[in-house]
């Protein structure tokens, strides 16, 4: 998948909430050195989106798994790169306690291709290489990067420890969206969430079309809930939301 698509995909997902913004701006979280986290640990980060758009998004990571979860609508996109060439992808609908599982052939028919590095890095792994290093940031082991890519201005505070941005702001046509890490989600919470999702009733994407009498799936099929674009994301009524794509 092209880098721009990855960013675009994530930002479709990330910008899906429409609830009012939190007025009090939290400071970026600094990972604590007492619990030295590394890229391979199980942990999560909650991001708050502010500026031109608002929303909350949780990134959950455990071994080769990365999930993006929108707590507002209960929809998650959950990747497992245990077999790097054939990642598994699951879309979680927490409010319905249902899952749609996508296998290799399904992902191909949907033209969904993602890079593990992009998924794990909040879609910034490629971006960093195109920005200039501006020096250390306030949190230990974090660095500021800044620059322009394809008419967008990016500013990233990158945590080497987490392999994630603590802050990411994107300015385009005078409008700025800012993602800010709000809090760390502890390993046990991440594991609990993933194991809860594991228990949800699952349907193969390929089987959706043969199960139109299942009320949940019928809603998915007819309202475009399941798969409308390559990384669809949905509002609380199941309507796909076409967030501002950033190419």
């Amino acid at each position: 998948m092209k880098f721009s698509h990855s960013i675009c995909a994530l930002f479709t997902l990330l910008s899906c909430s429409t609830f009012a913004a939190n007025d009090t701006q939290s400071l970026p979280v600094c990972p604590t050195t007492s619990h030295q986290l590394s890229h391979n640990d199980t942990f999560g980060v909650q991001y708050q989106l502010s500026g031109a758009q608002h929303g909350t998004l949780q990134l959950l990571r455990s071994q080769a798994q990365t999930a993006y979860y929108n707590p507002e609508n209960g929809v998650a996109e959950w990747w497992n790169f245990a077999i790097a060439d054939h990642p598994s992808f699951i879309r979680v609908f927490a409010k319905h306690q249902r899952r749609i599982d996508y296998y290799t052939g399904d992902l191909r028919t949907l033209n969904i291709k993602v890079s593990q590095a992009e998924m794990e890095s909040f879609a910034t792994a490629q971006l960093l290489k195109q920005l200039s290093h501006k020096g250390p940031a306030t949190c230990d082991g974090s660095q500021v990067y800044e620059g322009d890519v394809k008419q967008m201005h990016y500013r990233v505070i990158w945590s080497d420890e987490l392999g994630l941005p603590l802050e990411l702001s994107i300015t385009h046509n005078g409008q700025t969206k800012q993602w800010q890490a709000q809090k760390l989600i502890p390993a046990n919470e991440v594991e609990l969430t993933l194991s809860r999702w594991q228990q949800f009733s699952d349907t193969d994407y390929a089987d959706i079309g043969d199960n139109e009498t299942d009320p949940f799936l019928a809603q998915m099929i007819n309202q475009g809930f399941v798969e409308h674009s390559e990384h669809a994301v949905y509002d609380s009524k199941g309507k796909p939301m076409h967030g501002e794509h950033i190419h």
Partner: protein
Amino acid sequence: MKLNAIVLAMTTAIAALALTGCGDDGENGAVGATGPAGQNGTNGQNGNDGRDHTAVNQWFTQGQATVANASETSVSDPKGRAKNIILFVGDGMGVSTLTAARIYQGQQRGESGEENRLSFETFPYSGLVKTYSSNQQTPDSAPTMSAIVSGVKTKDGIISVSDAAIRGNCTSGQGNEVMSALELAEIAGMSTGVVSTARLTHATPAATYSHSVERNWESDRDMPQAALDAGCHDIASQLIDFPYGDGIEVALGGGRSYFMPNTVTDPEYARAGRRNDGRNLTTEWTSKYSDGAYVWNREQFLAVDTSTTHHLLGLFENSHMQYEADRADDAAGEPSLAEMTSRALDVLKQNDKGYFLMVEAGRIDHAHHAGNASRALQDTVALSEAVRVAMEKADNDTLILVTADHSHVFTIAGYPVRGNPILGLVRGVDDSGEAAATYTTDSNGMPYTTLGYANGPGFGFGSDAMNTDSYRPDLNLYNVTDVDYRQEATVPMDSETHAGEDVAVYARGPGAQLVTGSVEQNLLFHVMNYAGDLAARAEANQN
């Protein structure tokens, strides 16, 4: 009526099994609101308690009568002429799919394509099959395959249980199970096989060996506790606990996780099995059959000695097997449908009493649901190759049927020039009848593909740019012949739907002459039953 006597109420057959001690279901037949089992089965006269469906089920009696008439008026093979029966089913393989796949295959060989014939299009007999189920104009695979293999139409979502049952209601199905051709073949002492590129527990293969009021009850985890408590069994377990004859000889396909306990991790993927009951059905297979083998990748599969292995279970994917287009890229390696058919026949042919084999190209349906014509056509060509193998390996004493369970809303539009790439944009002919210099365009001046869908996920590649002025994507910007391309759809839906028109059936071998004209889908069972005299052979072998 010998037929009625053996195609008797399933409860009777199940009760009989308890006698032979090879089933754990005996209790189902012995108790319940319908009273003692067996009477209707043995006297073969009436079915007023609803059990002997062969005497009272309208689908069954009408199909039987149609065959009886045809067998007297046609150029006729006598009843029972076919020693073996092979049934091929392309899931969702409507007539437009056949036409497009025929052209696709020809063009892959560098020909113009239209003149090509798929292997089974050379069969001497063919007909049209009405596919409606007993409650839907446009059906799913559960009632359609039930009709094909049991002679009885039923409701959507129900597998080899008559429509006296209510979908998803366990007790409503008990006593209304209808016997399949594969089960009769086993009772007759024949060898049997089920091959599919879908999960073996998926509706089409499941209809040959299991009975379920809900097609989604593929593992115990997929069933409500009430259904388990009421004595219903999941589909995967029914394959292993199969109570007739000496058990199914060959079962090859996908769906591995449905056979594995949730405490065991899949050998190919980092996922646990789906069974909550702790059963590992793959190891049960090899302990149940001393001449049995279980394989899960192509290398193991090709290494099986088919002369000594008489019960072969192959589960090549966690869920459905790969599309043919993606098969070469599978991590663990998967056999093709033709390879599975070939080796299944090697195992089955060793029985002097003959065999019954069902082969399903299960993923044509899924590619269509995804609006992805290329993969649907490649899987159809793979079915054609599997049939070719059967044509080569099966002797003249074998009835081969090729059909579909239902169609899809898949269209082939006008007016491309002869030989135009079937997946491509329409390029017509000019006023002198020669290939036009430019693509044909719609009223907005935009090109379009020959293939399309009446509904489904629709436009080209994901969220790429569309020409919003014309309300259609500018297909000049797309590689429409790419394997991943999704054809346009008129009505936007996230999953393309089945279609309600007739499908084709092709036949060769003894009894093939019965396959002609326009027929009800449940007739196909009666054709197989007549050609193979399955019921009588089963009865003879039981006594």
